[in-house]
């Protein structure tokens, strides 16, 4: 629908600056960004942050309640688990496992997806059609089921989970990137550039990639939230991070048999997962709105 456009001031700012301006206006998105950045920093610097050694078992302080409880200690804000390990330190360390590995997973999937999506998007004919149908199959199998089957083949473990989720996320990336490239290829400026003598590589790197990066960012943020939830879910089921590692989902399943004694040791890691996913989703939603508004102006 056409809208009135008022050109009150000259707006020659770069697209990124315009995007940032639109993004900044949304409070929820900014809150999400602050949370996201803090999770990111914590996951990078986790070893230097932890007040105690996350694997140190203190025999005298088994199942210490959180510090807001009368029996708690202020040195152990969230208390300790049944082996006397400090829960706060474990949760901080767990940030690198759940959140950090989710970022790595998505980065890997994005990179592979970009290569495969570009190959699929730029090719035509039978090759592309067969490829599409294989993608359709991979897209219909639920990602967690795919990840579980891959884990069943290569065995449990955090690193294997990362590979499995990477592979499970790949189809949607390839599909999305291929569609985005397809859409770009129809644009008039691509045809004009081709008439100037540009080959596929030039078109891809100079025109298509700069024009689809916004879609890529949105796809990546959606994938990060899926990856966090999948890593935590696999950890919870016992297919992901193994015993001593303090991955959040695994922490929940570890403290499951203590649910009567120490409900907070189940509640707090889950709250962290929720916050992490929420921050990613808020940033993703904010980006989506900002991009829409920037396009409209």
């Amino acid at each position, binding site marked *: 629908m056409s809208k009135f456009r008022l050109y009150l001031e000259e707006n020659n700012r770069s697209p990124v600056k315009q995007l940032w301006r639109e993004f900044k206006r949304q409070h929820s998105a900014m809150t999400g960004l602050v949370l996201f950045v803090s999770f990111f920093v914590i996951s990078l610097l986790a070893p230097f942050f932890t007040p105690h050694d996350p694997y140190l078992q203190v025999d005298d302080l088994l199942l210490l309640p959180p510090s807001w409880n009368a029996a708690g200690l202020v040195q152990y804000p969230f208390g300790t688990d049944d082996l006397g390990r400090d829960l706060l330190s474990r949760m901080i360390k767990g940030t690198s496992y759940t959140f950090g590995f989710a970022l790595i997973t998505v980065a890997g999937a994005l990179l592979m997806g970009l290569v495969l999506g570009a190959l699929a998007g730029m090719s035509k004919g039978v090759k592309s059609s067969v490829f599409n149908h294989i993608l359709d199959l991979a897209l219909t199998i639920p990602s*967690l089921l795919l990840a*579980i089957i891959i884990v069943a*083949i290569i065995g449990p473990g955090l690193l294997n989970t990362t590979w499995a989720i990477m592979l499970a996320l790949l189809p949607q990336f390839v599909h999305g990137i291929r569609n985005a490239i397809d859409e770009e290829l129809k644009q008039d400026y691509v045809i004009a550039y081709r008439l100037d003598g540009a080959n596929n590589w030039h078109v891809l790197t100079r025109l298509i990639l700069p024009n689809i990066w916004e879609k890529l960012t949105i796809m990546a943020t959606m994938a990060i939230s899926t990856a966090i939830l999948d890593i935590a879910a696999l950890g919870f089921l016992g297919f992901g991070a193994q015993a001593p590692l303090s991955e959040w*989902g695994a922490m929940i399943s570890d403290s499951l048999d203590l649910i009567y004694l120490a409900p907070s040791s*189940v509640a707090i890691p889950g709250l962290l997962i929720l916050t992490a*996913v929420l921050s990613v989703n808020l940033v993703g939603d904010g980006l989506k709105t900002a991009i829409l508004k920037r396009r409209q102006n």
Partner: protein
Amino acid sequence: MTRYLFRRLFLMAFVLLALSILAFSLGYLFPGDVVQNLSGLRQIDENQRQQLIGYYHLDQNILQQYMAFLSRIAQGDWGLSFASQQPLLQEIKLLLPATLELASYALLLSFIVGIPLGIVAAFKPDSLVGKSISAIAMVGYSLPIFWWGLLLIMFFSLALGWLPSAGRIGVLYEIPHSSGFMLYDILQANINYRREALYNAMLHLLLPTIVLATFPTTVMVRFVRDAMLNVWEQNYIKTARAKGLNRGQVLYRHGLRNALLPVIRQIGLQFSTLITLAMLTEVIFSWPGIGRWLIDSIYQRNYPAIQAGLLVISTMVITVNMLTEILHAFFNPLARRG
């Protein structure tokens, strides 16, 4: 429409073919002995092994092995489960209704709750009601489902003691098995404690359904809200308003019909997520469905069961997906292209 139908069915046949190749190759990809993985037999002596190699055409080339695999699947010989040494197809037939029952109630709930909330949120997007619906949907969208389930169990089952936390029905009630769908079985059964059993089964169903419905509901709210906001911007809405229809009439005659059309497609898309989430829900609530069985199979390294589970769940997802696509195209001529 006919042409569209043919193309869809062809695509489905192709996808199912590719799926069967994937399932077929799993038997070789899984660790361990191929003969064991295919047959599901635990102990195989030399004599029997030779027999099985002949039966599975393992001495012939890969294509013939694949053809043999297809004919076995078609005949219903899916091998045995490592764990129970029972035929897999029989086990799945007993388990699948439980999952379908749970998933369909959750899907229904997500529609009943999600669509009206989405419409309300779109009607006044900047009001307090609209904003809080969006905010709640956002939080629900980010909830790790296993934790959410545990939280509800902690509150309603452990703290308050209102609702049971595991199983489909109390152990006191014996329900004769006919269809596998619990509520239907109870209504059908010739028992004098029908009312109590029904009440008990409903109580057992309540928490898992709510947990499983949370994610699809929030997706629904967000989807309907966005679709409504989008439709509300269109010119034909302006025209309808200019004609003198009031908001309710515009909403009913022009808004909803256009905004809710893509919802049909969502059924198919949601179904796949729903089945995945059902696996987690079943584990938490000890629901005797195919999801929990599949996860147990992975713990037990029950490879034939994993293969069969993949085959059944994916076929189901693909079929539902395809059916809703066709249904959507049936109602929306625009979707028949491409």
